[in-house]
């Protein structure tokens, strides 16, 4: 059974004249990290909102087709049950802080309080996530006085504490500086290692190349390409679809066109380095 499955899904926002998602069929498997890329306004966020169960309950509009989360149709899920199954993190660090808690520790605990978790378990879970995310130094701070990067890490901690199996992460670093971005990707890496199923929308294409198992390309509401990350990025024609391709993938392609292809198509720096070192040593041997 697929973990998340979309069957013939189309969706139109209220008052809109065109569909935001058009006839999408896809099955997500447990434990993989899926990169979702494509032009802005192409439907990536709508796709995330759909899987998070916000469509149509929050946005209204017309949803056709079916979305199954762990085998149960999205319209049949209770919102609190969904909250403890799918975590959602998005770009704006400021709106993800509740604004009603005095310390970061309490902020992280909020979701667990709402779920009715007992106090000792809340404390254990919060301590655990704080250690994982290395934010021990922030726990006593007022969450309303943190920087954007710090808030985003607290937002991650708050969702991770809820121990959901699935995480939908929509452009988590678009408002952060390079340091904030690398902090967040460290967390995403950790979550991947823990075996979470992750749907990640991200413009920084090199990071997608490095972390994603599979990539979905969405354009004008349609799923135009999907597949293993290295396969998707080896198709240079994607550039015509308004999608960025990692520089390393372009390099691999150049090598191929020059008649000197790498043995395996490299899409990340470390893969390319490995290939180049190998080629270099081959030359010396000859």
């Amino acid at each position: 059974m697929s973990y998340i499955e979309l069957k013939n899904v189309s969706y139109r926002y209220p008052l809109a004249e065109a569909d935001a998602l058009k006839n999408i069929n896809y099955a997500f498997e447990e434990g993989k990290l899926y990169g979702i890329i494509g032009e802005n306004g192409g439907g990536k966020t709508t796709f995330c909102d759909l899987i998070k169960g916000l469509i149509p309950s929050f946005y209204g509009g017309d949803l056709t087709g079916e979305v199954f989360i762990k085998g149960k149709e999205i319209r049949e899920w209770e919102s609190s049950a969904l909250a403890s199954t799918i975590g959602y993190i998005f770009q704006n660090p400021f709106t993800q802080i509740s604004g009603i808690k005095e310390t970061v520790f309490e902020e992280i605990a909020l979701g667990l309080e709402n779920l009715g978790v007992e106090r000792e378990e809340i404390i254990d879970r919060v301590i655990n996530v704080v250690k994982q995310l290395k934010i021990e130094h922030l726990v006593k701070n007022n969450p309303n006085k943190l920087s954007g990067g710090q808030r985003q890490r607290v937002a991650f901690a708050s969702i991770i504490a809820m121990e959901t199996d699935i995480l939908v992460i929509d452009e988590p670093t678009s408002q952060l500086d390079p340091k904030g971005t690398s902090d967040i990707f460290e967390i995403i890496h950790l979550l991947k290692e823990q075996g979470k199923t992750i749907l990640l929308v991200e413009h920084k294409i090199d990071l997608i190349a490095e972390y994603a198992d599979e990539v979905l390309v969405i354009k004008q509401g349609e799923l135009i390409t999907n597949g293993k990350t290295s396969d998707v990025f080896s198709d240079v024609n994607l550039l015509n679809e308004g999608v960025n391709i990692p520089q390393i993938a372009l390099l691999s392609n150049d090598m191929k066109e020059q008649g000197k292809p790498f043995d395996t198509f490299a899409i990340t720096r470390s893969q390319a380095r490995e290939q180049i070192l190998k080629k270099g040593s081959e030359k010396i041997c000859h």
Partner: protein
Amino acid sequence: MKNRNMGLLIFLIPIGVAVNFVGGQIAVLLKLPLFLDTIGTFTIGAIAGPFAGILVGLLTCLSISITNPQSLFYVINFMLMGLLAGYLAKKGFFTTVPKTIGAGAIMGLIVGISGSLISYFLFNGFGVSGTGVLGGILMGSGVPVWASAFISNMSVDIIDKVPTALVAYLIIRNIPQKTLVKLPNGNVFLNAYKK
């Protein structure tokens, strides 16, 4: 699954409260001869309905009382404004400029009457701010106490509530349709804008 737009109302109400505060503060900073401290109540009441409006009014009154204790006695007035904004908006009153001016005048009038009654019965006819001085001057000039209370409270309220309603109208015009569509009174505005 349950409709989640109830959640949106819960998050809009505190915004109404905070906007009441900063509206009043900006009016002071710009040295305007108006209070403009009920824009949040008007706007949130108008888009989110009478119940939300009443809550904005109540919470505003409670939080404003900390620095302005006399407001506490006018809590009915704070809530009445939210109720009226929600009700009048439902009747289409905030969809055009002339209707908005009408709404402001009606609200100024009703709130003025209830404010005068509060001032008359609780505070001997003296308002608790500048209106008190105005009322006093009228009394000093020989106008009867009840008339002084009414004239001072109502004139101030009408002068303040018409521009307040107009600012609320401008704000509502700029609220994205995708937000309006999720709100109780949203369809009133969306239908009016279509024409």
